[in-house]
């Protein structure tokens, strides 16, 4: 599971929607490609790589949902308010599983609801008759309907209460272990992400700034912004101490600062940071990437950003399924 963290307006959702080519006018994807590396199906070897941005509409429609499904923040808005949950499952299955008879579609939908801990009777419910948690479960069940390889979870639990959030996350983790899909989990809550994700990518002002295994990122952030962001979540244990967060406020995206967008809020900003945009580059030998001039060339890295990586078992690398890159 890859976590994508960042504040509101940092481009997390835009990136996810862009990856599925769902952005609305006037948004425009000006460059780049989204490479979808399909997993071999039935052991027939790789199915090949599709550039979703270049793919035709029919190809795209085929990939959508059957391979990549999304769960958005507000399930109430994601579900069609005027039809039942069951009918929405039905629409989905009818399109992607043309051979499936109606009764089977219905029982499959019931199965899916069961999988997320909901009663199959709920198929007859309208979205407004369900609680927030239930709707989100239904949405997750719908996302699983075609056994996609990738699930994009865009703040799926932000609107819910902590307990419901935790229940749904547990459910999701269990399903991921059972079904083996890859997940992109988007949230502003870095503290939650550290718990959940294998790997975390941090975005700021529309750019990817740091990418590292979750534990490394949490215990030894390399990026000043990540360091500051971690400092924004008061701990649940230990002595209370004053924390400072990050000074200033997120930049206006219509008027980004020159150079590194974070430099006005960065305590360690160099002269260079004001002029040039740092590229996301690997830090030698650590398997992580960071876009910060402090880690380039011979700049002196502040002690806070140079903590040793925690010793963890090297996690098994998940095969790359989707790759977003700039051309």
């Amino acid at each position, binding site marked *: 599971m890859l976590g994508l963290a960042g504040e509101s307006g940092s481009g997390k959702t835009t990136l996810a929607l862009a990856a599925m080519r769902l952005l609305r006018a006037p948004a425009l994807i000006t460059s780049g490609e989204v490479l979808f590396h399909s997993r071999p199906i039935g052991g027939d070897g790789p199915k090949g790589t599709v550039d979703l941005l270049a793919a035709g509409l029919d190809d795209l429609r085929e990939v959508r949902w059957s391979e990549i499904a999304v769960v958005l923040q507000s399930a109430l808005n994601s579900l069609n308010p005027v039809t039942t949950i069951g009918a929405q499952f039905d629409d989905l299955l009818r399109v992607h599983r043309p051979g499936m008879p109606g009764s089977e579609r219905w029982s499959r939908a019931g199965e899916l609801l069961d999988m997320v801990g909901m009663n199959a009777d709920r198929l007859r419910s309208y979205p407004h008759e369900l609680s927030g948690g239930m709707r989100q479960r239904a949405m997750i069940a719908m996302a699983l309907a075609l056994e996609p390889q990738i699930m994009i979870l865009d703040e799926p639990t932000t609107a819910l209460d*902590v307990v419901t959030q935790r229940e749904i996350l547990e459910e999701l983790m269990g399903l991921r272990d059972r079904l083996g899909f890859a997940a992109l989990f988007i949230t502003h809550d870095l*503290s939650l992400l550290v*718990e959940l994700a294998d790997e975390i990518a941090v975005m700021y002002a529309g750019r990817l700034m740091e990418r590292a295994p979750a534990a490394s990122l949490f215990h030894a952030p390399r990026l000043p912004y990540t360091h500051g962001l971690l400092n924004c979540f*008061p701990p*649940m244990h230990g002595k209370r101490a*004053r924390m400072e*967060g990050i000074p200033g*406020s997120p930049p206006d995206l219509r008027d980004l600062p020159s150079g590194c967008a974070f430099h006005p809020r960065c305590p360690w900003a160099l002269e260079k940071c004001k002029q040039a945009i740092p590229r996301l580059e690997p830090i030698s030998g650590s398997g992580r990437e960071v876009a910060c001039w402090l880690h380039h060339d011979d700049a002196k890295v502040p002690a806070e950003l140079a903590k040793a990586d925690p010793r963890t078992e090297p996690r098994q690398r998940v095969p790359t399924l989707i790759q977003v890159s700039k051309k």
Partner: protein
Amino acid sequence: MNVAAAPVLEGRDLTKYFQVRQSRGLFARRLSVHAVENVSVRLEAGKVTAVVGESGAGKSTVARLLARIIRPDSGQVLLDGRPAPGGRPRSYAKQVQMVFQDPFASLNSVHRVRHNLVRPLKIHHVADDNVEGAVADLLRRVALKPPGHFTEKFPHELSGGQRQRVAIARALAVKPRVLIADEPVSMLDVSIRLGVLNLLADLRDKEQLAILYVTHDIASARYLADTVVVMYAGQLVESAPSVELTDNPAHPYTQLLLSAAPDPDRVEPPQLAGRGAPPSLITPPSGCRFHPRCPYAMDICKQQVPPSFAVSPDHIAACWLHAKPAERVASNNGLSTAPVGPLEQDTKKR
């Protein structure tokens, strides 16, 4: 510190039912939502009291009751030990001020920052001789510097954090002694939340304000508050000094909340201490409202509302598990074998 300080503002046994109509029309049934029942809160000068709970727990209703935006159905609001006057006279407004959740909604977008700050000054005749100076001073106090840069701005020209600071400045304008902050940071970006929380902490320390901090985020309550009060389904379930509460939660609901909260330091995956959703407030469960979700529920929990038991000095929990066996026997015909064990074990594990 004066340990037994008299509270500046106190809510005693506050109860509020909201009447809702099930549907519109001739035959609409009027139902009452048991929003808040028998909640007592004490706000002391120089202290932050946090109210924590899920949505619908009645946190905001308590805040509004204390701000006297709404009237309690029963119970009293005491200001300096005296019952607050009826209505909402200006004398009360001068003592108790409120900061709202959404800084985008709490500042009138047609008025400049100056108007928002000048109005309370004028209404309460604070600094009649030097209004401009007072406005600048307020902005400085909430760290909006230089003040001249902000007075002529419209709210939409400010960032979320700046707006919330203006809202706090407006509340401070009348030099109140009590500040009621209803989820003041939940709408703000993560990176600026701490700044606003630190501002509240400074106000508490430097100006000896009594602050009520309403939040759903137990971590921030632990960070900011001196005392934390946990609410569930309209009732107060636990109250303790903040560190004590998070380190040794006594009520199963508090434990559930803590087990669900994000915690990056956690080594093992969390075990949720209970499941399910909060009950309907129109037909709340009998006895302890948490009993349908409680892993330790006993028979008595279904029958009787638990009173508050002292777990330790300053730490109370409304849970039968903390009743001394005698009390439980007395009140429940000998059902005395309830397990106290799991709770204690659980508490020690942390």
